[in-house]
């Protein structure tokens, strides 16, 4: 059991990395990864939301949609749950911790449109995870996202001062480096498959 969970988390972090192998969560990845501090705050907030979204969507699907026979509305319901959840988190943050609100709160509205969040909710259903597996899958995906985001932010701070050919400056070189990193991450797919 514990081994299965460890494998699930490791798989989500390295083998099927959301950003580099499954392309989920790319929009914030490209726009946020230019500065190290923002990358760290974003990845913390996103990991938290991903884990919580896994739990909420699991509960909604199994205790609301299945009994009512409304499984075909799952994407619609999940996005509603995610929107409400993110706004709930924002309100709690504002009331309890102004410091956290100031550092993480600004990224909250954008997390709703991060496809990784809806993606993790849908994949949990597709892969028939139970509640514990869903929690750890969400956590693993979040850790994988954070790992790549932080690695990349460090790299792009270097790239900003590097001598890049003119047409490739900015987003283009970011894409190329992501491609090289993705090539490296493909190396992890050997041992488990």
């Amino acid at each position: 059991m514990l081994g299965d969970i460890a494998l699930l988390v490791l798989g989500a972090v390295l083998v099927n990395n959301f950003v580099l192998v499954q392309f989920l969560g790319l929009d914030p990845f490209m726009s946020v990864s230019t500065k190290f501090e923002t990358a760290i705050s974003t990845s913390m907030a996103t990991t938290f939301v991903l884990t919580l979204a896994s739990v909420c969507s699991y509960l909604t699907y199994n205790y609301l949609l299945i009994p009512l026979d409304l499984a075909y509305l799952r994407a619609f319901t999940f996005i509603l749950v995610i929107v409400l959840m993110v706004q709930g988190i924002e309100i709690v943050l504002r009331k309890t911790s102004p410091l956290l609100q100031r550092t993480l709160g600004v990224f909250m509205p954008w997390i709703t449109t991060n496809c990784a969040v809806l993606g993790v909710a849908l994949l949990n259903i597709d892969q028939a995870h139970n509640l514990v597996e869903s929690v750890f899958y969400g956590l693993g995906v979040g850790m994988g996202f954070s790992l790549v985001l932080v690695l990349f932010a460090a790299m792009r701070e270097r790239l900003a001062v590097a001598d890049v050919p003119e047409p490739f400056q900015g987003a283009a070189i970011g894409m190329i480096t992501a491609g090289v990193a993705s090539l490296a991450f493909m190396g992890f797919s050997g041992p488990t498959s």
Partner: protein
Amino acid sequence: MNNASLYQLTLDGLWKNNPALVQLLGLCPLLAVTDSTVKALGLSGATLFVLVVSNTSVSLIRTVVADNIRLTVFIMIIAAAVTVTDLLMQAYSYELYQILGIFLPLITTNGIIVGRADSFACKNSISAALSDGFFMGLGFSAVMVLMGTIRELLGTGALFADMQLLFGEGAESWRWELLHIDYPLLAAVSPPGAFLVAGCLIALKNQIDTCVERRAQGSAEAAGAVRSEHR
């Protein structure tokens, strides 16, 4: 709406403010489903439809929605449009629906659609919002299909395989063996290839923009030189 602004919208959507190459939004489907032309066509068609529907509806209700709940309302509208598209595809092209998998429901979180709703549709008339949605969707689709064809060609040496998934039985013969390669470039259809091709496309667009700008500058300088000679 006059012709000048329609021209502006077309130029913005297709080139100057292209959602995929300049705004870098909707990257998730752009990279994930472009390993073949048919997948790119299917998903970009669905995105175009959702974008037009959401832009039009957002523009319709723009005066009655309170400002602080507007994003939630927009996302609900988009999710409804996506669910309709999802069920339509399930009914009419089930195999393609299965291949596209979670990327069809994920159109809801495509940054372009929320972005256009929030920055354009909720401030403009219905006809303007509709054309903006159409041209932005067209610009996105163009880049997606272009990437799909490049990656399919490099990765398999052929073009337009499996078109029957989208266009029915008659399209089976559309497959066009363009290059006869014994060892196709597998990297092109795998994830790293997606990033590399996208990076090169963005760079190509930048290069074309710089060339056009230089030429415009050059001709302006030449005109200036001619004028000073005349004096």
